[in-house]
């Protein structure tokens, strides 16, 4: 039964309290095999067909570390400006749960491979928030349970569960932030922006598919409140935090953080105490509900994993990995902005629309930077928003490719299409009618290039509209609009309006 908790309105909450966040992100690596065995990691395989004695936790089996798992962990640490530990170990995190075949998770405890880094997150208004990274460490994923017999397929009320261990043992990197302070009323936005920035970084590193909807990027949001002071805010002790799970999209990150702030504020406002616990986010109802006691209270009895030996990357090895790092997304954006000649505002629009990579590919396919931006962060972004998806998702779903957009842009810049015609062509491409050129051909769209035809139309319009013509001759250049309109109608829209205007004015003024 979900009891709707009291919430304090957001503004009131922020007036009285200072939120502090902590985000834990789990990244599922895109290695070919699992962290400690050679089983494949392919998504969507038949249940229990990608398991072996090791990841099934059969008696006697032993783990062996995946070398690419280690490399990815180090590269992620470097990209997050972390110190890479010259010597680190795996540890056992002991607890019982049916989706964990050994009833301990092989993870890292007090000797993580990477620590003390930071990531600068650019917010929508261009300001930067620096998220401090506590650590990044290696661990393994658990199996997956289907809960049977309950009403909703969720765990509560289920009769029994069915476990598939295909996912057990897939490498995970856990990235933990230090407490994020000074976020104020932008806390939800910052949380979301951080996760998105992390996603971009990890995609650029090519270490993961980073798709929240597929579970290769997971986020747990820790939120606490402390009384708001006018100064010396940093001296106020942190409040009790809750950990919210089941945050499955960027939107959920923002909404869940916002909700928790409001909920905790109401508790505190009433003189109550926030319970340290794990909560569950519900995207449909927009609330968090209480789960278990927060894992801090659980004694995991960590000890160094005796079946594995320490990971001790040499400084040469780390340096070599550093060479493989791609350009940091922030720097890359600055470089592209300059190359494309966008203003700050234009670039921000492009980034916010999630269209940077698409534009890059489109320009590479031969489009102008201005054209690429106009289509992707203009027309296409508008349609994507209407459907509640991001530009990339809209593009893949509709089959619109950078090559298409480049072709469209070329059709305009080469003078074959004007803007209204190009939009028509785009409709056709989106409807699956083929490439831009094919659609333009099918629709018979072609700007009239032939000056004599144009001239004839212009002469005809001039002849048919003596009053307007007089006005134009007399200096009222704006009146030419009506003549342009006539010519365009005559040409069935397939004329370059600017050219028509030129011709008219040339004839009527000297």
């Amino acid at each position, binding site marked *: 039964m979900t009891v709707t908790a009291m919430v304090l309105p957001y503004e009131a909450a922020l007036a009285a309290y200072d939120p502090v966040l902590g985000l834990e992100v789990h990244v599922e690596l895109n290695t070919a095999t699992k962290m400690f065995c050679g089983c494949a990691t392919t998504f969507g395989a038949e249940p229990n067909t990608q398991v072996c*004695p090791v990841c*099934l*936790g*059969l*008696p*006697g*089996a*032993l*783990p*062996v*570390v995946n070398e690419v798992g280690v490399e990815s962990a180090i590269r992620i640490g470097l990209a997050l400006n972390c110190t890479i530990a010259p010597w680190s170990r795996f540890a*056992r995190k*002991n607890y*019982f749960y*049916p989706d964990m*075949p*050994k*009833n*301990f998770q092989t993870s890292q405890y007090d000797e993580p491979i990477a620590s003390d880094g930071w990531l600068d997150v650019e917010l929508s208004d261009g300001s930067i928030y620096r998220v401090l990274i506590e650590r990044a460490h290696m661990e393994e994923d658990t199996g997956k349970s289907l809960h049977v017999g309950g009403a909703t397929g969720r765990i509560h009320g289920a009769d029994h*569960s069915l*476990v598939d261990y295909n996912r057990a043992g897939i490498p995970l990197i856990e990235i933990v932030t230090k407490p994020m302070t000074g976020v104020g009323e932008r806390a939800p936005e910052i949380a979301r922006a951080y996760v998105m920035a992390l996603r971009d970084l990890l995609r650029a590193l090519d270490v993961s598919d980073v798709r929240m909807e597929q579970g290769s990027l997971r986020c747990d949001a820790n939120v606490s409140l402390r009384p708001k002071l006018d100064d010396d805010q940093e001296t106020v002790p942190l409040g009790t935090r809750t950990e919210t799970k089941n945050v499955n999209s960027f939107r959920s990150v923002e909404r869940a953080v916002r909700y928790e702030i409001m909920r905790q504020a109401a508790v505190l406002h009433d003189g109550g105490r926030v319970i340290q616990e794990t909560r569950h986010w519900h995207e449909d109802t927009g609330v968090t509900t209480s789960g278990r006691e927060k894992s801090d209270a659980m*004694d995991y*009895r*960590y*000890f160094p994993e*005796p*079946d*594995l*030996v320490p990971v001790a990357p040499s400084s040469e090895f780390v340096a070599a990995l550093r060479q493989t790092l791609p350009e940091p997304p922030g720097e890359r954006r600055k470089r592209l902005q300059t190359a494309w000649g966008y203003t700050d505002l234009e670039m921000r629009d492009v980034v916010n629309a999630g269209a940077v990579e698409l534009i890059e590919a489109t320009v590479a396919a031969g489009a102008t930077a201005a054209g690429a931006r106009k289509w992707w962060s203009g027309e296409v972004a508008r349609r994507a928003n209407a459907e509640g998806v991001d530009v990339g998702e809209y593009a893949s779903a509709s089959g619109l490719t950078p090559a298409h957009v480049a072709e469209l842009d070329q059709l305009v810049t080469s003078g074959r299409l004007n803007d209204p015609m190009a939009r028509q062509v785009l409709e056709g491409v989106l409807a699956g009618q083929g490439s831009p050129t094919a659609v333009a051909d099918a629709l018979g769209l072609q700007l009239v290039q032939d000056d004599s035809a144009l001239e004839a139309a212009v002469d005809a319009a001039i002849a048919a509209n003596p009053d307007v013509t007089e006005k134009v001759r007399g200096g009222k250049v704006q009146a030419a609009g009506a003549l342009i309109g006539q010519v365009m109608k005559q040409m069935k829209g397939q004329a370059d309006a600017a050219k028509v205007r030129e011709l008219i004015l040339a004839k009527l003024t000297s």
Partner: protein
Amino acid sequence: MTTDLTRLAAAEMARLLAAREVSSVELTRAHLDRTADVDDEVHAYLCLDVEGALRTAAEVDQRRIAGESVHLLAGVPIAVKDVLATRGLPTTCGSRILEGWIPPYDATLVGRLRTAAMPILGKTNMDEFAMGSSTEHSAWGPSHNPWDLTRIPGGSGGGSSSAVASFQAPFAIGTDTGGSIRQPAAVTGTVGVKPTYGGVSRYGLVALASSLDQAGPCTRSVLDAALLHAVIGGHDPMDSTSIDAPVPPVVDAAQRASVEGMTVGVVRQLGGEGYQAGVRERFDESVQLLVDLGAKVVEVDCPSFDYALATYYLILPSEASSNLAKFDGMRYGLRVLPSGVADPDAEQVMAATRDAGFGPEVKRRIILGTYALSSGYYDAYYGQAQKVRRLIAEDFARAFQVADVLVSPTAPTTAFPIGEKLDDPLAMYLNDVATIPANLAGVPGMSIPSGLASEDGLPTGIQFLAPATEDDRLYAAGAALEAALLDRWGGPLLDRAPELPKGA
């Protein structure tokens, strides 16, 4: 002919097989017949694989007939302690919680036995999950010492030691976490070796204490142990803790059989008070014999060894408590529903299964280990024990600077009566006081028979210890002493064991 065959050394059996004077099928059958005769009394085996063993034997015979080259030990049958995964053969680890579990894979070392085409006779009895020194903690009852069936054959590998000592197998695979190969060898008049930690793959060895476990040979002679060690040893990429180096030259060393020029260190802390007089008497004689053979003897002082037992009984339960967490009735093995509970949840089923499936010693050590690892106690117990462990390793290092090998009595007493120490866990733990230090430091150790104790006429053992990766020193010294003792005795010690009654 049957009895004669089973009394041969494995090396001799191999020679006869190679000379085609006997077939593997004959040899294997002889051992199975022996088992049929005596194992009702000895109870060495938990499961026999008659069909599988004979099939392998027949295949080897065919290959020999066809003139194919086969391994030196091909066709010599062997028994395997039930803690090792054997594909298609039940593997219980002496526990009800794994009753009926049939592994879908072979332990790496089992794979090496199969590659060498050695017929696997069956799985031998053991203390549950290798926790014990008497085999009395087996869910299926103890094995019995062939020297006196009312007495323990040692543990946890009492099945392997009693199988070998009763001629039901030429040799066997055992495992040793705190002495579980060496102590049973000592009390049954046989040979047992714990290789350097990492010298033999642990893949497929159901873990008790991951940083202490090692598999090794249980045999009737040092040469047989060397031959077996050479088969099972060596690097395994499936075991991250295995040593990436060739097996030390153990066979050469066993054949060389010399202590000429060796310095032998007698460990002050191992032996003396708490050790049975007859055990010490035989030990002192053996040390003197080593001197006669050309060794120099010195005394070494390893003060940290006084903490070894306590250290072990903190580290082992801690690792074991985690290693045994996987046995919960969800994926394999026993599943027990709690009685009187209408619709039990997963946790309740786990708890009921583990209470029903584990014996008292296992439960004791799991609880102890859970405590030693728990927050607030970690530093004082597990954390502290890992530090003392380093002190013990350093004591060994210092001792090996002045001695090539160390010696001690293997166990403080001869075989005690079944039931005598069962109610006193601490008294039981004391059986391992001399063998434990080697596991903590990872150094190799060997026990060979040193004679019968005068008070009770029961076997005693002398233990050799060598630096890590220098296992061959054990074989050189052990074989030398063994030859001299054989000479003095006029034949193997086991010849003096009473004839076992043949079952109906």
